[in-house]
């Protein structure tokens, strides 16, 4: 599995868990508009889970500018 696919699959597990949507499929293009329940508070939950999963801590400015799964992926890659 290449690195990007690995990150997406781990993110997918987090999104499924945090949004309680066991069959959710996400892609880098997914945005709050097309994922049920992905509001600003869900972003905070998701970020907390991502920080645990990838052992990272993100800055408030980064978190605030998350508009898509791709934004998360690039934060993790940075």
């Amino acid at each position, binding site marked *: 599995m290449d690195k990007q696919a690995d990150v997406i699959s781990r993110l997918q597990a987090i999104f499924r868990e945090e949004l*309680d949507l*066991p069959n959710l499929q996400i892609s880098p293009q997914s945005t709050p508009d097309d994922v049920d329940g992905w509001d600003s*508070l869900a972003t*905070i*939950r998701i970020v*907390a*889970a991502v920080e645990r999963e990838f052992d990272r801590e993100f800055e*408030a400015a980064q978190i605030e500018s998350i508009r898509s799964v791709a934004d998360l992926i690039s934060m993790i890659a940075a």
Partner: protein
Amino acid sequence: MMRWLPQPTTSDIELSRSLGGSNIADLVRLAQCEWDAGGLRRLATRLAGIQLPDGQPTGLQAVRVLLLSNSTARHLKETLIGTGLRHGMRVDVMISEYEDPEVLLVRDYDSIVSFNPDIVVLAMDVHAFGLRPAAGNAEAAAAIASRAVDRLRAIRESVRSSFKKPVVVQTLTLDPGHVRLHVDRLIPGSHADLVGRVNAGLSDFVRSSGDLLLDVAMLSERIGQDNWNSARHWALAKYPFAPENAPLYAEHLVRLVALKFGKSRRVLVLDLDNTMWGGIVGDDGKENLLLGPGSPVGEAHCALQAMAKELRDRGIVLCVSSKNEESVALDAFRTHPEMVLAEEDIAVFQINWTDKAANLQALSDILSLGLDSFVFLDDNPAERAQIRFALPQVAVPELPKDVTEWIPVFQSACYFETTGFTVEDRDRASYYRADARRAAQLKSFARQEDYLQSLDMELLVNPFDAIGRKRIAQLIAKSNQFNLTTRRYSEADVAAAEADPRRITLQMRLSDVFGDNGMIGVVIADIGADAIEIDTWLMSCRVLGRGVPEATLDWLVARARDLGKGFVRGVYIPTKKNMMVADHYRNLGFELTGERPGGETAWELSVDAYQDKKPPIRIRDAVGAH
């Protein structure tokens, strides 16, 4: 963070994802574990999905909680619902947030009315009051504080007139944005001074209004203010405290809410050996117990007793439940010079060899207090698990291995929260001890078999060997209670037995889901002409009631058959301390064949007629290999 709660197992986590149908009992059991916000949200989701046939009660107290927060609080909703299950409640939560309560009560008036709350939480944090410092100005400080308290009083009044419901008021923690120095306690009008004045003023107010006080300041002190706050989450989303503290906040808030619905803990049941004191009184003797100054363990047990005594002074009923010889244990309790608790501090003693679930049930009957008001303190993880399994309504704190660490864990649970305290409360505990009747018949816990199955026990049976020699000799020297003959052998004797081909030697270890219990039993037997003659049979009392003697006998009979012997024989030699095994052989199906003056009895079991007892223990036999 909530160390008094057990951690969920892998299968608990799996169940929290998949549990369906109408299984509320399982959901409540799951909720007894420590879950993070995600886990509590899953429990809330499972609860919402439960469909009960019409009219079937859930067994949960339904409570509607309105939470008014000047900050963000929506994320607390499911945390509160999941936590409610831990306290036997089906909590419905309405969050009204992000404005001052005065505004919220108007803005959301219609939806609040239709929600019809049973209780209202004024979840106001320091930001609701500002409390900008007026450093050095005592007059201004007093005015600022009294304005804050007056405002709270007005909000309380408007809730009262609109909804006539009980209210929870919170103390304030310091706003980390303000200057905070050591000297601030000396400066009237510093932020710390203002917060202190407001907390004192609102406590006075709650004392007279009869509302409930959630001491958020204490919670944040317990974990440290730097851990309580999250500057990043305040900036991002106006979270009043770090989101990882939500389960802790919810646990304390829900416990307080539960008080209004008659759910309070009033009884503390204490074990004796390795809880009240260090050591096992029946084996070690009173004089060798660790209690009192001189050792860290002895001091810790003293401190625990002192804490129990303080709880008694607060009206908590203390009871003892211990697997012991009653006379031996009571003697230590009455006469050990370092005991902090006295006999009259204890309402009821249950000292016997029956399982503890049966004993707790008996205590509940004797005291006429529901099991949901009980807290059970015991060092033994297997006893704790049995109570959690048999009586899920009893609070069973998880305890660290190290007894010196128990008190902070126990204290932070705040089990014995009350709505207030009066002189009558103080005297209440003594009413219960007036008649310490004992339940004549203890019914053994009906699902004992299921419980033993759940322990997944394995008995490792080995012949004596060089590695075990020291521990074997130690057990032979120390075991007094479960010891049929109390024959003492030295390490050299043990080595001789090990090498003797006419002897069968067994050292036994028991492991279960909680781990390895270590070496728990020793048997030495002679191979006679027609029988196996048991010379020594002893076992650690720690594993009583687990079916180990039955498993040992199954093994011995199988060995007798292999050797072509027709009988297994044993003797019981009474001592002051081994009354508990006087009927050991009778209970296992042996026939009495002889009796001597002094009470020594001889027993015989016919191998042909024997049916394996098959207790729920896997035997791993390494003896046959030799």
